């Protein structure tokens, strides 16, 4: 049976924004005859210049349907008009890599991982919808990224999510966070994808703009890559999945491009109709249906329907194909019979895909859809006209060159200027902040202990169990590592043990202090997290969350971040395969911290050799890898203890990151280690506590220098490793051969975290402090 749309929460009422468009039938003939009719282009988010350009492309005024189509295709969300000139660097500076099978510009990048397998992965934002309606906004964010992966020809195998909210104790966070988590849980669990990791962070700057970035990874055989192109004249265009309804109309242009109101003025509720409603059951059927269609060789081209719905799918398929496309909008199955062409084109109803199949394959194609209970309708054909033509009730309502909508949208090189306050921010050095042992002199064990517990119990560093317990991590049976490990790890081949590791990282505080270095630190951390499991980092995806591109200060942050990421990827030898830009994350004049979230994918030749962060095996030597400097700008200590944000973030050192990754990968493969954990927020102290808690074992360490710095500095390119007894010498030799500083600081054992001369914290106390925070806040 098919899913019953009526069983869903009732579709939102039609927004009045587009109501004016459906009154009366506007056709190409009528548009030519009434060139001066006023059109609501500004309401749809188009500028006067953009509207003029549409008229120039068409040689007449657009029809209502064409105007709707261009407005969504030329929105910031779909056209990347403010970011495109900068994103080119990812391709221009890309390191040589023979692993990249499909890169930027496709639904998702595709990477060759060997043994005949390819993986595709991408991260995408659903920030604004998740603020308006947290549960459905987050749920449909998962659904959308999963369809991106499916459209590449891959079976989706896991999801992750990177979440940022306002202060954990703010009333609105208690509305948004549980809703977002329940939406991800509801959708991800029901489509049967393990949730293997992500992030959770809190900061005042996200209070009106939570960040909900969803990642999906998929696996296919190397030759099974599908491209979004409508090829072969006469081939059929089939729309699969959910009926088209009035939900999410204008979401692409309204929600992603317009600045939000100040909040509290009722405007959020006015936008509720713009948020889509998800049906994960139908998505699961759609996944299985598409994979069976692919396997049977019945799909000549395929595209998911996300932002801008049918407008985007038809324009992109036609633009990438060999000819044109003719579509009969009357044949689109509707959930609401009152919808007209503009709404049908703009609708963001979920759980839909568009595929191209040969006429001779159509019966088999529809048979497979019927088997899975997935509705399928032939809505058009591939033509050789080079035009995208659409009819409605016998008349032509769209007749455009598809490339003008899909590829040749407006491009803006917006003004960027380093903000005047940047210098004062970096001059505000955290070295001046009071810290334990100063001015009282070295030592102050009680003070150091208190800092550790304050960090461990702070919402951003506390145990994420409250969240992750709502996610299925086991489904599909290939999850080797998941939260709270450094990276998620999925087995790809049960026979050989081939697998992929994934981590996402971002740090808005670092990026605010220095957008270029902060972005590189996010990249470094994700790279290091993947390496800490023993994997070989291979490729990068990113989700760039920023304020308004019309603000030169934000644009400067953005250009610096993109330049930093492109340079960093070149230095680390890992190409960017794709990504997503989310602008307009601002409330009133206040933008969020610039928050690029970077995802790194790595390969494990044998997942049985993976490393957990958990200390295992009493007596294992604990080795601190990398060089520790006094680096506290943007640190968790400054943020949690002093509410301070200033100075410079830790120094970036890509050469050191590469050496560290090489050591961890080779040591894992050689079986020298029983655990490894990357050092980042909260430094060595927090990392040791996490490793003790994960493994259920204590440790005793002696710090090799000034206590406060060694405990809490956030210097990059560092990790702790627990060495398998008997491998101490070979591991030391490996570190030395790669020039990685390595110092044995103690050993695993006991039931407390003991730092000589500083403090002893029983594991039970660590667990209470670490585990108690989120349940106390969210119930």
């Amino acid at each position, binding site marked *: *049976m098919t*899913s*019953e749309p009526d*069983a869903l929460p009732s579709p939102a009422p039609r927004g009045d924004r587009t109501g004016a468009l459906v009154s009366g039938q506007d056709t190409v003939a009528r548009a030519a005859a009434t060139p001066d009719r006023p059109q609501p282009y500004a309401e749809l988010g188009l500028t006067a210049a953009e509207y003029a350009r549409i008229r120039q492309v068409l040689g007449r005024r657009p029809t209502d349907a064409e105007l709707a189509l261009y407005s969504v295709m030329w929105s910031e969300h779909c056209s990347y008009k403010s970011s495109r000139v900068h994103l080119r660097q990812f391709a221009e500076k890309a390191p040589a890599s023979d692993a990249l099978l499909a890169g930027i510009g496709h639904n998702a990048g595709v990477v060759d991982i060997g043994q005949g397998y390819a993986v595709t992965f991408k991260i995408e934002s659903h920030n604004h919808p998740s603020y308006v309606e947290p549960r459905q906004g987050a749920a449909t964010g998962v659904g959308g990224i999963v369809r991106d992966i499916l459209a590449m020809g891959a079976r989706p195998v896991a999801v992750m999510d990177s979440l940022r909210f306002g202060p954990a104790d703010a009333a609105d966070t208690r509305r948004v966070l549980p809703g977002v988590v*329940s939406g991800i*849980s*509801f959708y991800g*669990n*029901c*489509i*049967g994808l393990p949730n293997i990791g992500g992030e959770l962070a809190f900061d005042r700057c996200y209070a009106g703009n939570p960040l909900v970035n969803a990642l999906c990874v998929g696996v296919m055989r190397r030759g099974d890559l599908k491209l979004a192109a409508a090829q072969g004249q006469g081939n059929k265009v089939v729309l699969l999945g959910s009926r088209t309804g009035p939900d999410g109309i204008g979401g692409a242009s309204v929600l992603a491009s317009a600045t939000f109101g100040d909040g509290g003025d009722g405007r959020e509720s006015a936008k509720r109709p713009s948020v889509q409603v998800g*049906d*994960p*059951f*139908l998505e*699961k*059927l759609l996944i299985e249906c598409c994979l069976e269609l692919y396997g049977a060789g019945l799909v000549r081209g395929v595209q998911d329907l996300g932002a801008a719905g049918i407008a985007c799918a038809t324009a992109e398929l036609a633009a990438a194909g060999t000819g044109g496309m003719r579509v009969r909008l009357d044949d689109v199955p509707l959930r609401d019979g009152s919808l007209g062409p503009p709404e049908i084109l703009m609708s963001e109803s979920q759980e839909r895909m568009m595929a191209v199949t040969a006429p001779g394959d159509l019966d088999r194609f529809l048979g497979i859809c019927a088997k*899975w*209970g997935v509705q399928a309708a032939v809505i058009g054909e591939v033509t050789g006209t080079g035009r995208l033509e659409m009819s409605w009730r016998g008349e032509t309502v769209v007749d455009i060159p598809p490339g003008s909508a899909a590829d040749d949208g407006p491009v803006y090189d917006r003004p960027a200027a380093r903000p005047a306050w940047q210098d004062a921010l970096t001059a505000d050095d955290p070295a001046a902040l009071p810290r334990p042992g100063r001015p009282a002199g070295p030592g102050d064990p009680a003070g150091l202990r208190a800092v550790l517990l304050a960090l461990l119990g702070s919402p951003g560093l506390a145990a994420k169990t409250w969240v*992750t*317990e*709502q*996610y*299925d*991590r*086991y*489904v*599909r*049976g*290939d*999850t*080797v590592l998941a939260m709270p490990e450094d990276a998620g790890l999925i*087995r790809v081949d*049960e026979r050989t*043990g081939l697998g992929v590791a994934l981590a996402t990282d971002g740090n808005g505080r670092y990026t605010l202090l220095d957008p270029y270095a902060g972005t590189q630190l996010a990249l470094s951390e994700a790279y290091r997290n993947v390496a800490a499991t023993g994997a070989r980092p291979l490729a990068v995806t990113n989700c760039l969350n920023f304020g308004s591109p019309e603000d030169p200060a934000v644009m400067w942050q953005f250009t610096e971040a993109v330049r930093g990421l492109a340079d960093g990827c070149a230095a680390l030898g890992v190409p960017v395969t794709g990504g997503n830009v989310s602008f307009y994350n601002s409330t009133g004049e206040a933008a969020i911290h610039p928050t690029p979230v970077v995802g790194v994918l790595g390969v494990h030749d*044998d*997942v*049985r*050799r993976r490393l957990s962060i958990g200390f295992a095996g009493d007596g294992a030597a604990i080795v601190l890898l990398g060089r520790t400097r006094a680096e506290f700008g943007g640190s968790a200590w400054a943020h949690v203890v002093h509410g301070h944000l200033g100075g410079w973030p830790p120094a970036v050192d890509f050469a050191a990151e590469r050496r560290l990754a090489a050591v961890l990968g080779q040591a894992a493969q*050689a*079986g020298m280690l029983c655990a490894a954990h990357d050092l980042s927020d909260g430094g060595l102290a927090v990392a040791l506590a996490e490793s003790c808690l994960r493994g259920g074992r204590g440790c005793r360490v002696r710090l090799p220098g000034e206590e406060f710095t060694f405990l809490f500095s956030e210097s990059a390119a560092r990790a702790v490793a627990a060495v398998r007894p008997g491998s101490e010498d070979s591991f030391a030799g490996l570190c030395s051969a790669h020039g990685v500083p390595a110092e044995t600081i103690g050993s695993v054992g006991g039931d407390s975290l003991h730092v000589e001369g500083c403090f002893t914290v029983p594991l039970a106390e660590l667990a209470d402090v670490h585990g108690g925070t989120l349940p106390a806040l969210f119930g």
Partner: protein
Amino acid sequence: MTVRIGVITFPGSLDDGDAARAVRRAGGEPVPLWHAERVLHGVDAVILPGGFSYGDYLRCGAIARFSPVMTELAAAVRKGLPVLGICNGFQILCEAHLLPGALTRNAGLRFVSRDVRLRVESTRTPWTRDYSGGQEITVPLKSGEGAYVADEATLAALEAGGQVVVRYLGASPNGSAAGIAGICDGPGNVVGLMPHPEHAVSALTGPSADGLGFFSSVVSALAGAPADAPAGAPAAPDPGLVPSR
């Protein structure tokens, strides 16, 4: 003889692949069964896997129980076919009245995904004969509607008849009556439980290999082996073990 164990796929089934893998690891041959076909292909036992059949619309399992394959299954159960329902499969068996009681929303009203400790209370079923009585095992629980409820008389009868198969150790994670995690029918052939033994067949991908006993039990029961093999002993090498070097 190769023991053939059917795994039913309903629309929305998610753990069918895991159940098939567990069967293989236990030395059996998994046979895919399709909800829309009224045939069991002569299998020796059947597993109803976890997932969200029909999106859990109406009630968990309420629609799946009317699938054509369920008619055949009910008839085969009357002849003694061993059947295991895991999570959504347990819910379907209750909805189909092949097991008593029902599963309702978790006490905390949230989805709970957690490794749980269980005590094996009954080893008389074909799915648990490889365990020792009172054995404690760790397997994942992952469900939003896992609280077992039944009227007092039914609960008393389950206890008296030795029909409680597995019980949560410590506080119930979902508010199940009497900490019940799984039960069987009177004869003991039909077993349903909320936790997922198929996700605990290897230390590499699960919290333990403790769940393998459910699958090795039925394989040995159907192959006619005496129930004296070591509890939960894997029939195939654990791929989670690091190869020695």
